[in-house]
């Protein structure tokens, strides 16, 4: 009976927190790294005191499935301080999402022996990114920031060493499934701007990526997930055109339909709301608005949007291409 309860709880956990959960070794960072000396034990931060530690920045981590944070400060004589922040998230998807908010910087391969369920192509979604003293990385359910207050050749070496210590012996699962639903192109000519593709769960984060409106009109929360990215092409005169694609996955079809109704009420108030789809039916609508054509497609628990299209055909082609 006890075993059955445990199985139910584990499976329930997978259902509640959609996204891969692995049992991984927790990094234990050494006290000495090169010239730098760290603390005997890290500072521990939880959801309850995260605002004490980082002021309003805590909103970002709570917009994903945050569990806890460990903070290490390393010091060395005549060298900048190095701050290590290990964010333990409830799923790998959440840690990936945090890294996906900014793909800028120099891609860094941290764990060549990484063996996920599927092969990870670092040229597409790097595991680590370094720039001017700051390393950001994703290692299964950990998102980490390792930052030297000033970049020196020694501090860069130590920052990267710390990154490798964090990822050592940890396997990385694949990126979120929804991320992999982003096609490389729509039609023949709209090409994914890969460096601006992001995974999120909250309207606060969506608004920091592509602003639609301050109200949570898409009814996003920690049970939902979304990806957004621009797609670009050059027009006949060589000018760059851009459309914005948004794909949302809800816990069930009813929630997806409610979200669409809410969005429609706020964003497309001059148009009649979509009729009840019966959940399994596909709903596609296209509208001209101020910055071009937009459209959406609702099918089961998935909502797809495309904005700023030059014509109706682009909207329809884009939405039809999504499985």
């Amino acid at each position, binding site marked *: 009976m006890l075993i059955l309860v445990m199985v139910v709880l584990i499976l329930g956990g997978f259902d509640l927190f959609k996204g891969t959960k692995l049992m991984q070794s927790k990094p234990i960072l050494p006290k000495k790294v090169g010239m730098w000396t760290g603390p005997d034990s890290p500072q521990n931060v939880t959801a309850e005191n995260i*605002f004490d530690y*980082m*002021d*309003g*920045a805590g*909103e*970002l981590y709570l917009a994903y499935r945050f569990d806890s944070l460990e903070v290490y400060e390393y010091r060395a004589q005549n060298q900048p301080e190095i701050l290590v922040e290990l964010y333990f998230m409830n799923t790998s998807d959440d840690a990936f999402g945090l890294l996906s908010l*900014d793909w*800028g*910087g120099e891609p860094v391969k941290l764990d060549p022996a990484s063996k996920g369920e599927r092969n990870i192509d670092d040229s597409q979604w790097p595991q680590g990114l370094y*720039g*001017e*003293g*700051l390393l950001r990385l994703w290692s299964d359910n950990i998102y980490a*920031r390792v*930052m030297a207050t*000033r*970049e020196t050749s020694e501090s860069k070496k130590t920052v990267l060493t710390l990154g490798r210590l964090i990822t050592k012996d940890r396997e990385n699962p694949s990126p979120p499934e929804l991320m992999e639903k982003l096609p490389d192109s729509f039609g023949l000519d709209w090409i994914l701007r890969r460096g601006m593709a992001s995974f999120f769960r909250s309207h*606060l984060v969506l*608004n*920091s*990526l*592509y*602003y*639609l*409106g*301050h*109200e949570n*009109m898409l009814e996003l929360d920690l049970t939902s997930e979304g990806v957004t990215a621009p797609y670009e092409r050059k027009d006949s005169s060589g000018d*760059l055109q851009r459309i914005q694609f948004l794909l949302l996955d809800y816990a069930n079809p009813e929630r997806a339909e409610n979200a669409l109704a809410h969005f429609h009420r*706020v*964003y497309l108030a001059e148009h009649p709301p979509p009729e009840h789809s019966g959940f399994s039916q596909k709903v596609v609508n296209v509208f001209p*608005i*101020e*910055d071009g054509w937009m459209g959406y497609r609702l099918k089961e628990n998935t909502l797809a949007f495309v904005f700023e299209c030059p014509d109706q055909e682009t909207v329809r082609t884009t939405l039809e291409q999504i499985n």
Partner: protein
Amino acid sequence: MAKEKKPVTRRDFLRGTLGTTLGASLMGSKFLQAGRMTAGGSVADPSLVTIVRDKGAMDANNSVSSDVLKAMLDETLTKFTGKPTAKDAWLSLVTPEDTIGLVPTPHLNPTHQEVVDAVKSSLIEAGIPDEKILGAQGGPDKPKACTALIGLPGLKAHWLTGIGTVMKLYILYSGSPRNYHDENNAKLGEIWNYPFVKGKTKLVLVDALHPLCDKGPQPDPRYKWPYNGLIAGTDPVAVETVCLRIIMEKRKAMRGEDWPLSPPPLCVEAADKVYGLGTSNWENIKVEHYGWDQDLLLG
């Protein structure tokens, strides 16, 4: 029956109707009567904002030169007020009887301590007693203890409010800072009108030595650059508008394409149109710049 609040959306920006939407959503019909007014109720003159820059304000390690900073502060004070000395300038803004609160940015690209120290030393040299100069960043008790405030924000973007420089500086005075995130960032201006805050700000002096042009929420050194400037004014909205212009221009220069702030900084226009704190209209702002003029980023 109360009218349903109309949420602000991207389409309001595209239509150019944000002002009406935002104002109506916050203030109802009172918005329509609001305009940029002075404390006395008349329409104000163009707002002066000065920018003083010195390439030597920071060295290659981004350490601040106190001597250069002092000279920049002196020039800022004399150019802004038109007075011959820094002492005269301060005494045109505050009096020795005032209890003066210095209000730096505490988090995410915080104000350089050297800037706070330089302002304090300069005030003391002007004859303000040391004990009458307080650190005034924090809860509502801080401004209540002061008769004058000197805003010393660090120039930065912010992931929840678009820009997090001037209007956000007093957020802790509300006692409930989380109430001013998201859409409610438009209401940041109301804090400046709290009875224990209103009228006390004698100068806004922005630390633009090493600004942050992306929104964080935590510092990323790739988005910081040595602007080496001090930006000053008594109209907080005009100063914020100039700061916003600099950040937007830097973002464009960095990416080589338009890189909008997202979410848009509703608080700037709202501070003008809803709360009457100053002007966000570039045409009503007089910008004077002195010193190093490379990459001024004023468009």
